C-alpha cells in the first residue's frame, strides 16, 4: 500500500454571492464544496467526477491554492498546507501544479511558447539553463523545438493543451491537477493527450487529481474514483469496482446515461434507472440527502436526514440511506 501524498479533510468552500434583507444583511452563500474528504496516494490517479455545478473545479482550485478554504484542511505529505494565521505555505507551489480545461484561455495570447513554458522556471529560480530546460520540456510533450517561437493562436487545440502540460511540468512537481484537460478536444486528440499524460506519470512518478465529467474516460485513466454531487462526495471506490458495482443511485443514473459504442459496454450500464431532473442551484440545496428529488429509490428518511458515508466494502464508500 503506497502512502498518501495529499489528504483532504472535511474541506469546505462557501462563496457569499449577495445579501438578503435590508437591516439584518443575512448573507446568501453558495456551498460549492461542503465538507469533502479524500486522499490521493503516491503515483495514483484519483478521479473526481460530477455534473457541471457539482463543485469539482472548486475542489481543484482550492487544492492548488487559488481559493482559501472556508473550513477544513489540506495536508501534503502528512503536513498541513496552512500554517499560522491560515496562510498557505509557499514552498509547496512548486510541488502542486494545474492544467486547465480550456487551453485557449489559459495561455497568454501575447506571449510566445518559450515565455509561457519558461515563466515558472524564472519564478522558481532554478539554476538550470532556461533554453535547454524549455527544449527538454517541449520534447517531453512531443512538440517540435521550433514551436518555441510560436504564439498560442498558431497552434491547434491539442497542441495548446500540450504546452499547458509542459508549463505544469516545468517546476518538476510531484502532484498535478488535471481539470477536464480534454473536454474541449476531439476524441482522436483526446486519446493522444491522455496517453501522453499516462506516460509522463510513469516516467516521473506523478500523482494526478483527474477531474472530468466523462465516466468512460475516467474508467481508463483513474485508479480510484469519487463522484460528487452538489459539493459532497456520494461514492468512492477503486475504478474497476466502481464501474462493476455502483451502489449510489446517482452513480447508477450517470452510468446509465452514458452513450456507448459497443454491446459489451451496454452490458455494464445499469438498466432500470433512467435519468430525470436537473442538478439544482447550489444556493438552494435540498434538505436531507441533496440527491433525493432526482432519486428513483427515494425513501421517507431521505428528505429529512443527511446520510453519512459508510464503508460498504473495503475501500468502497457510499453516502446513501439504503446502506446505513
Amino acid at each position, binding site marked *: 500500500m503506497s502512502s498518501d501524498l495529499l489528504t483532504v479533510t472535511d474541506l469546505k468552500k462557501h462563496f457569499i454571492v449577495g445579501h438578503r434583507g435590508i437591516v439584518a444583511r443575512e448573507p446568501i452563500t453558495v456551498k460549492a464544496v461542503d465538507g469533502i474528504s479524500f486522499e490521493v496516494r503516491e503515483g495514483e490517479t484519483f478521479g473526481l467526477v460530477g*455534473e*457541471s455545478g457539482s463543485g469539482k473545479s472548486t475542489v481543484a482550485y482550492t487544492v492548488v491554492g487559488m481559493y482559501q478554504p472556508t473550513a477544513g484542511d489540506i495536508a501534503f505529505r502528512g503536513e498541513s498546507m496552512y500554517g499560522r494565521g491560515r496562510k498557505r505555505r509557499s514552498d509547496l507551489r512548486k510541488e502542486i501544479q494545474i492544467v486547465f480545461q480550456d487551453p485557449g484561455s489559459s495561455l497568454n495570447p501575447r506571449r510566445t511558447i518559450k515565455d509561457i513554458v519558461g515563466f515558472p522556471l524564472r519564478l522558481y529560480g532554478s539554476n538550470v539553463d532556461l533554453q535547454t530546460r524549455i527544449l527538454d520540456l517541449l520534447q517531453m510533450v512531443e512538440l517540435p523545438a521550433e514551436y518555441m517561437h510560436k504564439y498560442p493562436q498558431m497552434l*491547434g487545440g*491539442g497542441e495548446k493543451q500540450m504546452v499547458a502540460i509542459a508549463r505544469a511540468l516545468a517546476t518538476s512537481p510531484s502532484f498535478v491537477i488535471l481539470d477536464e484537460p480534454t473536454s474541449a478536444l*476531439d*476524441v*482522436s*486528440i*483526446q*486519446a*493522444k493527450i*491522455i*496517453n501522453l499524460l*499516462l506516460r509522463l506519470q510513469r516516467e516521473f512518478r506523478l500523482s494526478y487529481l483527474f477531474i472530468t*465529467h*466523462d*465516466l*468512460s*474516460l475516467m*474508467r*481508463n485513466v483513474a485508479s480510484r474514483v469519487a463522484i460528487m454531487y452538489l459539493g459532497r462526495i456520494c461514492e468512492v471506490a477503486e*475504478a*474497476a469496482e466502481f*464501474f462493476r458495482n455502483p451502489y449510489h443511485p446517482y452513480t447508477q*443514473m*450517470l*452510468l*446509465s*446515461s*452514458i*452513450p*456507448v*459504442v*459497443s454491446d*459489451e*459496454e451496454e452490458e*455494464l*450500464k445499469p438498466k432500470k434507472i*433512467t*435519468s*430525470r431532473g*436537473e*442538478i439544482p442551484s447550489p444556493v438552494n440545496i435540498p434538505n436531507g440527502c441533496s440527491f433525493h428529488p432526482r432519486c428513483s429509490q427515494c425513501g421517507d428518511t431521505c428528505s429529512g436526514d443527511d446520510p453519512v458515508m459508510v464503508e460498504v466494502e473495503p475501500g468502497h464508500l457510499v453516502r446513501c440511506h439504503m446502506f446505513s
Partner: protein
Amino acid sequence: MENDLLLNIRDLRVNFDVFGGTLKVLDGVDFAVGSGEKVGLVGETGCGKTTTMKAVLRVLPMPPARVMGGEILFKGRDILQMTSRELGQVRGEGMAMIFQDPTAALNPVFTIGQQLDAAVKYSAAGDKRLSGKEIRQRAVEALKEVALPDPERLLKNYPFQLSGGMRQRVCIAMAVAGDRELIIADEPGTSLDVSIQDQILRLLRGLTDKLNTSIVLITHTLGVVRELADRVYVMYAGNMVEVAPTKELFSRPLHPYTVGLMAAVPKLTGGGIADGIPGRIPDYLNPPVGCRFHPRCERAMEQCRAEKPQFIEVSEEHQVACFLYSQEEEEIQRA
C-alpha cells in the same frame, strides 16, 4: 427508393473565399435522408458537418461561402434554385434546426412565448391562418410535448431564467411545434451534462417516432449516434467516407478513419485508449490531392495520393470511399 427520399444531396461543393485564397470545404458531398428515417452524421470538429446542414437550410453566409456545384433536393425540389418565397415556405413547414448552444439560439430579449409563437405561426403560414389563441395553445402543447413543467408560466419567462437543459427543450419544442418533416439537430446534447443529454436524446427519439419525423443528428460523439440513428454517415474533411446502418457500422467499421475514431473512444470496459489518429484535419486552402485522409492514414497507398476514392458498395447499404476495398472487390470479381 429515389422517390422516397425526403432530402437528397448530390455532389455538393462549397468553397469559402477568405483573405489569402479559397477554402475548398465541401468536396462533393452525397447525403440522403428517407422519410421517417433517423440519420447520424459524425466526424471531428471542422470536417464540414455543420456547413453541409447549413447549406441545406441555406443559412450559410454568402459571401464568404460559395456553392460551386451539386444539388440539394428536398422532396424532389432543388433548394439551391428556390426563390426566397419558396425557401421561406420550406424552412417554415418543411424543416427545422436545433443548434448546439441553446443559449445562443434563443433571443435573450424576447420571452419564450414570443419566440415559440413565431415558430408556430410561420410553420402554419402556408395552408391555414391560425388565430393568436390557437397559436398560443399549440405553443403550450409543444412545451408539454417536451416534458417541461408549468408551460403557461414558462411562456412568460426569458431565456436567461431557464437552465441549459430547459433551454434546449424549448429549442426542441420550437422545432417540433409545426409538424415539420425534417429536423436537423446539430450536437443537441454536447453543451449539456450526460444525464441531461440522455434525457434530450430520449425525448428526440420519442417525439420523432411519434410524429414520424425524419431527423439528421450531427455529432462528434459516436455513442450518441448509436443511441439514436438508423443509419450513419461518417464525414472527413468535406467528404463522406463511409455510410452504413448503425449496427453494421459499429460492428464492422471499414474506412481507416472510422476505425481510428472508434478506437480512440474511451470504453466503459476499460483497458486503455488507442493512440488516436496522428495529425489533424487538413488545411482547406491546400487540401491533400487524392483521398483527403491519406496524410493521416496508416494504410495509404500510391493510388490514394493521386485519385479521389468514390463510394463502393461493400454490402447492402454499406458504402465506403476507400481504395482498400475497391481492390478487394476487384479480386473477388477476378476469382
